[in-house]
């Protein structure tokens, strides 16, 4: 659905986006992840035909952004970081205006406006001036604007920025409900957001593509070794945590055992495996056979946060000059 090849965008003195390529399949939700100033907004602006690329190609639904911008624009809905709303318009008036601008036929306009009002839950404020709306409502009006013409592709620039936790959850579920019919790219620098809403991640840092993969694969790829948290309880009488630690270290495949906490009879350990070894069955057996209680045994997930730090840190080490070049 979206095809980006060797995209580069250079401003007067800086390279905002440096030779990135990726592909997005139809119906996917893709998280566009990167620290502030990584080039997310620039990439999105190229995809929405707001600005042309310096080099490289980008196409949406098979139409090139440079050669057939009108066809691309018909097929995208775009929510910029700041919702593009007019304070002096009422919500319904604004949506009608955008609807006409997006080329919705007169006969369908009313129906479409009603549909997005329903979908984005802005019915309560439909006749209010947008300047009087709270940030959350404004964001929703912005989202209604983006989906009013039922575009194939939705491009959302930090759709949850500046919202309160409840609004963030609502916005996320709204975005999720839009998947399927629409291909969605959403940019963010909040990692859990990607973990929760997206199937696919594109990570960029300082204008360069760092990784692109599914959320699941990316987590796995970086987690070569397994980490397990174990809680052991002595069955009768006190058990020294050092004794347990020694026993656990003997389990095959274990590379490191860390005593995390001891509360009376309960001892919590964090255990790392050697590369590519499954250690949980052996760990469980070892604890039980030694006559202790196994209260808990769970894998410790590597969060996207860590992946992100690993990826972007190594990138910085490799190119100390960063994305800003003369």
């Amino acid at each position: 659905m979206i095809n980006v090849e060797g995209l580069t965008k250079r401003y007067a003195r800086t390279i905002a986006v440096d030779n990135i390529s990726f592909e997005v399949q139809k119906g996917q939700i893709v998280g566009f992840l990167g620290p502030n100033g990584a080039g997310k907004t620039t990439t999105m602006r190229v995809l929405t035909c707001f600005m042309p690329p310096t080099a490289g190609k980008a196409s949406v639904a098979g139409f090139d952004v440079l050669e057939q911008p009108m066809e691309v624009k018909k097929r995208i809905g775009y929510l910029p970081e700041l919702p593009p709303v007019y304070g002096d318009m009422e919500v319904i008036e604004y949506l009608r205006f955008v609807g006409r601008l997006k080329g919705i036929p007169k006969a369908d306009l009313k129906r479409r406006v009603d549909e997005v009002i329903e979908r984005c839950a802005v019915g309560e404020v439909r006749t209010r001036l947008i300047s009087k709306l709270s940030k959350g409502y404004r964001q929703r009006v912005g989202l209604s604007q983006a989906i009013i013409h039922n575009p194939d592709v939705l491009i959302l620039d930090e759709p949850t920025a500046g919202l309160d936790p409840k609004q963030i959850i609502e916005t996320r579920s709204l975005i999720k409900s839009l998947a399927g019919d629409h291909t969605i790219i959403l940019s963010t620098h909040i990692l859990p957001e990607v973990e929760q809403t997206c199937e696919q991640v594109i990570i960029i840092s300082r204008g360069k593509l760092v990784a692109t993969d599914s959320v699941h694969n990316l987590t796995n790829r970086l987690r070569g070794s397994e980490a397990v948290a174990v809680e052991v309880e002595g069955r009768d009488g006190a058990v020294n945590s050092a004794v347990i630690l020694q026993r656990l270290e003997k389990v095959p495949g274990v590379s490191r055992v860390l005593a995390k906490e001891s509360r009376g009879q309960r001892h919590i350990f964090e255990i790392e495996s050697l590369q590519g070894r499954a250690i949980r069955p052996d760990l469980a057996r070892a604890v039980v056979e030694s006559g202790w209680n196994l209260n808990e045994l769970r894998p410790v997930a590597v969060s996207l946060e860590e992946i992100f730090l690993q990826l972007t840190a190594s990138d910085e080490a490799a190119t100390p000059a960063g994305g800003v070049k003369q």
Partner: protein
Amino acid sequence: MRNTVTIFQKEIKSYFASPIAYGLMAFFALISGYFFFAFTANFVERGIRMQMMGRGMPMDVNEWVIRPMLMNMSVVGLFVIPMITMRLFAEEKRLGTIELLATSPVRDLEIILGKWLAALVMYSAILALAGINTALLFLYGNPDWKPLLVGYLGLVLQGGTLLAIGAFISTTTRNQIIAGTATFAICLLLWVLDWASSYGTTSAAKVIAYLSVVTHFEPFAKGVIDSKDVIFYLSMIFFGLFLTSRSMESLRWRA
């Protein structure tokens, strides 16, 4: 075409939803009302004096009231126009709504035309309100209406020119105050250019004087449509809108 209408309607609504429209109308009506009063009073006084001196020559309302009125309106317009155009694009840029317009399936030209036409209608509305003054002349006198219409046509053409230039300046900044001030400066410059002709008769002075928007208005005020002046205004409008579209395009490259 449909898109131009959409943009036009939105702009008109936004003019009349804010106090700007009413403020400008009141301001313009007040000033032109004062001029109207001054010229009419002068006209009447002269008429009485001439009768008393026994030299009762026929006096022309068009020449003594309408023509100076139109000339003054064309100059006062220079002050009003920056306030109409300053927000056209600067505000969209500040609000970020320019991103909505630029990513909608709408051509730049359609946006520019819609906005310029709305500004022109706004300006015409301001002129029309001030036209009530001259309507009073028809109640008590018998002025010739054709030169008046020609004069109004001239005002609209002159307004269109300056509005196109103002629209261009508005695309270059996101600050309305800067846009307004710069437009005002250019308007003044285009007005005083014709003073250059009084300082010299060289061809350079003539060229400079030719560019003055007010010089080209004078024949209209007299009720004369000269194709030279019409072409001047139309080409200036075209030039202004052309600059606007270039500037909008360059926003995309520079952003």
